[in-house]
Each structure stands twice: as C-alpha cells, then as structure tokens.
C-alpha cells in the first residue's frame, strides 16, 4: 500500500511539474520519459529474462523511422503512427529474436549487437528510402501537441499506459515464467515450458515498446538520424538500467531520471559528457552493484542479503 502511495505521489508530481520548471527542463523531462520507456523495455530482456541485449537501439530506431517516414512522406496522423511503429519494431524483433533466443550470455549479446548493426547499416546506406545519414527532418507533431507542455503531457500519458501494460506483463504468470528462465533455464524446461518460445515472446514485447519509445522521439526532436540505431545508442538503456537497478521494475526509470538529468546538467558546462558518464558507470559497477534501487531496497530491508551471484546458484 505504501508503495502505491509513493507512486501516486511521484505521478502527481509529474502532473504538476510543468508549472514549476522552465521550458528547457520540460524538454529534459520529455527526454527522461522517452528514454525511461526505452530502458524499461530493455530491462524486460535484461532484468526479467537475464540476457544482455546489445542491439536494443535497433528497435528504438525502427520505431522512430516508421513514425518519421509515415509522417514526413505520407502525412499519417501520429495516433496511427504509434501502433504502426510498435508493429514494425515488433516484426523486426520477431525475425531477429527468432535467432537470438537460441543463444545465451555473451553470444546473445554479440548476436543482438550484430543484428542491430545490420539494421543500422541498412538504414544508413539505403539512401533512396531512408535518406541515409542526412536523416529525416521536419517531423512535426500535430498542432494540438505543438507546445512543449502539450507534448510532455502526451508523452506522460503514453509512457504511463505503456508502463502499466509492461507492469502487468511482468507481474503476470508470463512474467514469473521469465524470472524462472532467468534463474534456471534448464529446470524451467524440465517442467514443460517451451523456453525459446517464451523468450521470443518476451523479446518481441520488449522490441515493441522500444519501438514505441522511438516513435515518440521523432516528433519531439523533429528530426531523426540513423545514429539512433547505432551500437553506442544501445549502451544508453544499459547504463540507465545499471544506474537505477535491474532488479526492480522502476529501476531503469530511476536510472533514466539520473542519467538524463545529469547529461542535461553536465553538458551545460563541459563537452566531456562521455568521460563523466564513464566514470559514473565505473563507480556504480565497482561500488554500487544493484544500482540506486538496490541500495534503497537494501536500506529498507535492513541490509537483507542481496540477489544471489551466479557462482552461488545451483547449476
């Protein structure tokens, strides 16, 4: 109960936020929501399925390109573009995931990365269709959402809806099956669950929501470029998840708040943002395993023992 009260409080704060902050910080808030949605979708694979996807930006980019190209070339309304983006990213995830779920660990990470790069190069090189590295400009949100405030509320609404759906999925029997697969895929197979099929479904769901996050990005930024799909952009949700904590549903969102806020703040006075975030990541990896949420929950539970490390689990 306390938890829901806390969430409600945060949500109320998010609703009244534009009244107190300037336009620049509303932009940052929109970015937090979009990238947070991206990171939460990534964590469906990382936190709940236990596999590191290093090509998650591909689905984000595909989502962004579906919406961007439909809006620029065919003037399709945004409301129709969003579900189409989800479907487009979902189809990509279905094809790629079909192969990826056969592997685990480092091989899964590299295969997702190789496929992600493949999508990046297709978008990058297919000049006649995607305009290559010129990117797409002039993705204008409908007049109703033209002001920053309106787009903020729109993003908040879509992100909330998506988070609720993902929350239900993660708390459903399906979500618990994913946790079982993460903890021990062999035993899960023994009780008669088709592990690959479940992993593929989860992969597609994660890809679809990444596509939704990407679709929201285009009209917000008014332009998109193939770099959205590139592998260093796949690092962003990984960073957010690790900073926020992968063991809780809202960890990546908290990570997004910290990451994006820090980026807006740091880039204000130095160009060396990668250096800063690199040091932050090393600090978190070395001294705060489990992320911010992990520390917070440890405090709450009186430093109860943490999630078991891999060498302690029974094979």
């Amino acid at each position: 109960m306390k938890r829901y009260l806390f969430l409600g409080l945060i949500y109320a704060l998010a609703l009244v936020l534009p009244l107190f902050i300037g336009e620049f910080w509303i932009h940052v808030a929109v970015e937090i929501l979009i990238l947070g949605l991206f990171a939460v979708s990534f964590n469906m694979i990382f936190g709940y399925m236990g596999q590191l996807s290093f090509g998650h930006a591909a689905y984000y980019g595909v989502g962004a390109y579906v919406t961007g190209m439909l809006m620029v070339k065919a003037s399709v309304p945004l409301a129709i573009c969003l579900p189409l983006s989800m479907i487009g990213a979902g189809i990509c995830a279905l094809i790629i995931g079909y192969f990826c779920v056969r592997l685990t660990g480092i091989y899964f990470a590299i295969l997702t990365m190789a496929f992600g790069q493949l999508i990046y190069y297709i978008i990058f090189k297919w000049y006649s269709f995607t305009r290559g590295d010129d990117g797409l400009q002039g993705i204008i949100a409908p007049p109703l959402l033209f002001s920053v405030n309106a787009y903020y509320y729109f993003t908040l609404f879509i992100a909330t809806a998506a988070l609720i759906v993902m929350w239900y999925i993660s708390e459903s029997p399906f979500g618990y099956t994913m946790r079982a697969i993460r903890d021990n895929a062999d035993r899960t197979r023994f009780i008669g669950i088709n592990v690959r099929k479940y992993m593929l479904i989860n992969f597609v769901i994660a890809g679809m929501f990444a596509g939704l996050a990407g679709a929201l990005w285009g009209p917000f930024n008014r332009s998109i470029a193939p770099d959205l799909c590139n592998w260093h952009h796949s690092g962003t949700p990984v960073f957010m998840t690790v900073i926020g904590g992968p063991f809780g549903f809202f960890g990546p969102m908290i990570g997004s708040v910290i990451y994006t806020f820090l980026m807006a703040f740091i880039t204000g006075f130095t160009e060396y943002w990668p250096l800063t975030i690199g040091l932050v990541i090393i600090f978190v990896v070395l001294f705060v395993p489990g992320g911010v949420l992990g520390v917070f929950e440890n405090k709450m539970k009186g430093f109860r023992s943490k999630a078991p490390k891999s060498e302690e689990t029974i094979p």
Partner: protein
Amino acid sequence: MDITLLMSQFISGLSQGMMLFLIASGLSLIFGVMNILNFAHASLWLVGAFFCHSIWLRMQDYGFALWLSIPLAGLVLAGIGWLIEVILIRRVYKRELPEQLLLTYAMVLIIGDVIKISWGVEDRIIVRPPEVSGPVFFFGIPIDSYFIFVILVGVAVAIGLWWFLKKTKYGRIVRAAVFSREMVSALGIPIPRIYTGVFVLGIFIAGIAGAVQAPVGSITLGMDMAVIIQAFCVVVIGGFGSLLGTLVGSIIVGEIYAFSILFWPQGALALIFIVTAIILIVRPWGLFGTPMRV
C-alpha cells in the same frame, strides 16, 4: 574486371585482414583466458596510433623514426594496459558478464574523451619513410609496399604468439588456464598474475597494431568505434580463444570487405554482419573454437 585489379584488391584485403588480426588476436586472447570481453580494445589501439604519431613527431628527421616509434608505442600501451588491469579489471574478475562488459564499455567512453583532451580533435598524419612509400611490383601488378609491411607484421605476431603459446613454459600455463583455472591455481600458480600478464600482452599487441595502422591513412577520433565491431566479428567467426581461428576470421573479414567494395560497395559492412550472424546461429563457438559455455 581484369586480374590486376582482383590481385591488388586481394592484397589490400589481406593487409586489412592482418590489421584486424593484430587487434582481434589480443581481444581473443584476453577473452579466452580471462573470460572478459574488452570493449576498450580498439580504443587502446587508437591510443597506440596517437602515441606512435607523438613519438614519431619528436624524431621525424631521422630515417628510423617510424621503425622505432612502433615498438615504443607498443611498450607505452603495455604500461597503460598494466595500469588498467591492476586498477580496474582486477576488481571485476568474479563479477557477472554484464558488469564486466559495462566496465570496459565505460572505458571506451573515458578513453575517447581522454584522447580528445590529450591530442585535440585534428587528424594526424604520419609521413611514411621512403622504404614503404612507393609501390612494389609483383608480376607487373603494383602493390602498396606498406601493405606488404602490414602483412609481414601480422605474420610475425601470429608466429610469435603461436611460439609463445605452444613452445614456452608461460605459454603452456596460459593454455592450461584457458582449460581449467581451478587446476592451474591448485598447482600453486598465481592466477591473477597470469591474468595481468595476458592482459598486458593483449594491449601491447593492440598498441603495436595502432602504431602500424597510423601511417596507413590519417589518425582520426572515433576510428575505434567501427574497428571494435569488426574485431568482434573476427573473433566470433574464428572462435573465441583460438589463435588460428582469429587469423582465418581476420582474413575472411578483410577479403569480404575488399571484394564487396568492388562489387557491392553499399553492402560491405552489412555482409560482414550477415556472415557473423550466420556463424553465431549455426556454430556459436566459431569456425575453430571449441564448444563451451553456450
């Protein structure tokens, strides 16, 4: 399409492949022994190129400038590698894969900015000494003589590594550590020291590779980002931890690149990723690797 063009393209692919081998061999060695995938490998390779340029700049009036800069850059990088291992990598031996990946990924970002701070954003160019600046002729086919030098360095490193791993006592210990860490450690051999040695050796080769790369074209910030992905592809195709596999994988990737530039320029890199993906799906342990931990 005449034979001359194909031949010169083949040699160019071979030299590109050898360049990749120089990077990927260290990557594969570090992963094979330490089980750590070093994202920052190409970043350190780029640091090697910049160091080579700086050292070369100090003595460019002498004829031997480049030939001395290459080993010196390798040694500097070996020192940097040692520092990174002792300060950072050592702390994550027992951590899980994502944390190790993130640590080395964070190093990519840090090293990129450190290069920017230390060397600025301008491109650097090393003027090749006369021995390797003109073309040489094989049966009347002109071939860039620097390519021949790159191939020779690649072959030398391959033979050197093979000799080290198969014929020396330390090489045997390293191979034993790949096979079973517990057993080696039970025999009283300190594993951390082997790890440090392997990491330093890998980064030393990366430094040499960067220095050898430096005179090929200009040295540019961000070069490392494309190279690391290609090096991953090489290691995946050849198989993690296999020296022969890395050599074959490098030549495959180099030749795919060289020939697809000729026939299908847009698809050069895409083709490499497709081959990598197929290998990963069909044979995750690569052409020459041994099936393990899949």
